[in-house]
């Protein structure tokens, strides 16, 4: 980044670059995505090679007589025209009915309700830590780059970014849990614990550490790079030169001006990162046997428990959608340039 490149717009989420379209365009876009997700969720089980019957599990489909087949189809309403099926599907969704699990007959909704808080805890913690550490590291690397340094941080962060999260998780378990014994290897709480409320917190935090650390390390890369580049561009900008000429101390410049402006894209990156974190949590929870949505999805995939799979897919997708929507809606509040349309692509 060369000095004076403050004319380049900061990275913005999918919506902010087209603020002229306004809220209506944004709403249309998100509704379309929602429709795509719902349709995917509806169609895919019916795309199975064995037909929708394959998705029902249970009987060996090939052994059913034609009569039994017709009976099952009628029972699940699968003999209705597809339009009617879709309408039923939407109606059930609106009522919050996500079906029942093949494996243990529990309602999908209750399974998800049990798992969701753990995922939220994991993802939330990881997000906050990533933001804080990323800001500090990125700012440091940015201020060093002007003097030609900071490369080790960038390379280090890049390596972390390139690492597959599930492998990193496994390695962390090996080092910190199995060999050093500092942390537990699986679960969200110590086994057989009766602790509830405040007393349960230390156990929970203990079990949370390694999974959260994995997510943080993997997500750090993006944040550090963004903060660093925006830091560099701010530090080289004219108004900062001016402030420097007026005699402000380097430290005041760094924290008072540079950091605040550099933090701008971090906000959106964070919210977008939330989407990736949710996906990343899927894999990390699997490694750590952490009882969140990700783990639920994994065991559903393994046992071919399609209702649960569809339920978790829906919830995961909707959360990512929500995060992106919040990012798009709130970004103009933070970046005045977007509001006034200046410097946009």
């Amino acid at each position, binding site marked *: 980044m060369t000095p004076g*490149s403050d004319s*380049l*717009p900061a*990275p913005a989420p*999918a*919506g902010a670059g*087209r603020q002229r379209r306004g809220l209506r*365009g944004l709403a*249309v*876009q*998100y509704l*379309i*995505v929602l429709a*795509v*997700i719902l349709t*995917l*969720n509806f169609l*895919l*089980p019916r*795309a*199975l*090679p064995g037909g929708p019957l394959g998705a029902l599990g249970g009987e060996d489909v090939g052994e059913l007589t034609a009569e039994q087949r017709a009976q099952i189809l009628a029972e699940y309403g699968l003999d209705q025209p597809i339009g009617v099926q879709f309408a039923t599907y939407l109606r059930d969704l609106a009522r919050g009915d996500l079906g029942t699990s093949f494996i243990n007959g529990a309602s999908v909704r209750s399974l998800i309700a049990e798992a969701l808080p753990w995922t939220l805890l994991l993802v939330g913690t990881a997000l906050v830590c990533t933001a804080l550490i990323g800001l500090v590291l990125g700012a440091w690397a940015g201020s060093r780059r002007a003097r030609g340094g900071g490369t080790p941080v*960038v*390379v280090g962060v*890049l*390596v972390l970014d*390139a*690492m*597959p*999260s*599930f*492998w*990193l998780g*496994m*390695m962390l*378990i*090996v080092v910190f849990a*199995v060999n050093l014994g500092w942390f537990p290897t699986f679960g969200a709480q110590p086994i057989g614990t009766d602790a509830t409320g405040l007393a349960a917190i230390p156990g929970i935090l203990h079990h949370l550490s390694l999974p959260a650390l994995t997510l943080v390390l993997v997500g750090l890369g993006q944040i550090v*790079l963004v903060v660093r*580049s925006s830091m560099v561009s701010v530090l080289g900008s004219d108004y900062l030169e001016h402030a420097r000429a007026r005699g402000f101390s380097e430290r005041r410049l760094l924290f008072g001006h540079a950091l605040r402006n550099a933090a701008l894209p971090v906000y959106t990156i964070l919210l977008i990162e939330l*989407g*990736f974190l*949710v*996906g*990343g949590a*899927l*894999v990390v929870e*699997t490694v750590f046997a952490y009882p969140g949505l990700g783990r639920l*999805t*994994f065991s559903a*995939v393994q046992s071919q428990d399609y209702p649960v*799979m*569809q339920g*978790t*897919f829906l919830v*995961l*997708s909707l959360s*990512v*959608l929500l995060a992106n929507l919040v990012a798009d809606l709130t970004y103009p509040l933070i970046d005045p340039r977007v509001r006034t349309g200046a410097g946009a*692509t």
Partner: protein
Amino acid sequence: MSRLSGAVRRLGPLGWVGLALIGVAVAVAVAGPLLAPFSGTERVGPPFQRPNSVNWLGTDDVGRDLWSQLLLGARPSVVVGFSVAIIAITIGATVGAYAAVSGRRTDAALMRSADVVLTLPFLPVVVIAAAFLGPGMGVRVLVISLLTWAGTARIVRVSVLSAMQRPHVEVALAAGASRRWLLARHSSFIVGPLLVPLFVRAAAAAIVLDASLNFLGLGDPTQPSWGTMLYWANVRGAFLTDAWQWWAMPPGLALLMVTAGLALVGIAVEEQINPALAATR
């Protein structure tokens, strides 16, 4: 294209390291079946063996040779990564460039569809598609490509738009040249330098995504791959014992090597060709 070759010449140590890493991966992917002592899918010894003179990395829970799996696993990753990158860039660059030189409505429609794709949550969509559509490599390549093209389209569009605003292009436009004709003549100059960064980004993302799919057990069980090795390592708790050293670490390191290599090359080239990418990073 001279800008591109100039950038390659100034690759710098990071870039060369990256290139070397990628080179090793590609070489192993190509020569895998020749180098691997066993097939990786059949039982060749007692399970859970430590590394020895026959099985250099020991055996897995069924007794399959891990070293062969490691070597043979290069091919699916490299093939998927490169295929996705090629497909995604072809679609994305075409859409992005076309949108940039078309009228407002076409541009808006194309970009809106790109935004829709970008807003979809990657991993859940890929997981559910793979879960229902089956474990074949073609399915994975298709699904990942359909999600990756959108990012490329946006970047290419920005690049073409800014190129269209350059003085000499404005002169040509004023003289009556159509934007599409200009694009056709100059597209390699405009899009060329972007190709390398776009390619490495798409390939790296695809490789990790594909490995994640395999790790979740959605991959092809008949084909050894790094993600699948880690799947079994996880399911059989290899990292709770010594076995992590020869079962869990090598495939992860292999994945890391390829993605880090791609990322390094991307960074090295990006440093030279800056503006459009830096703006959208």
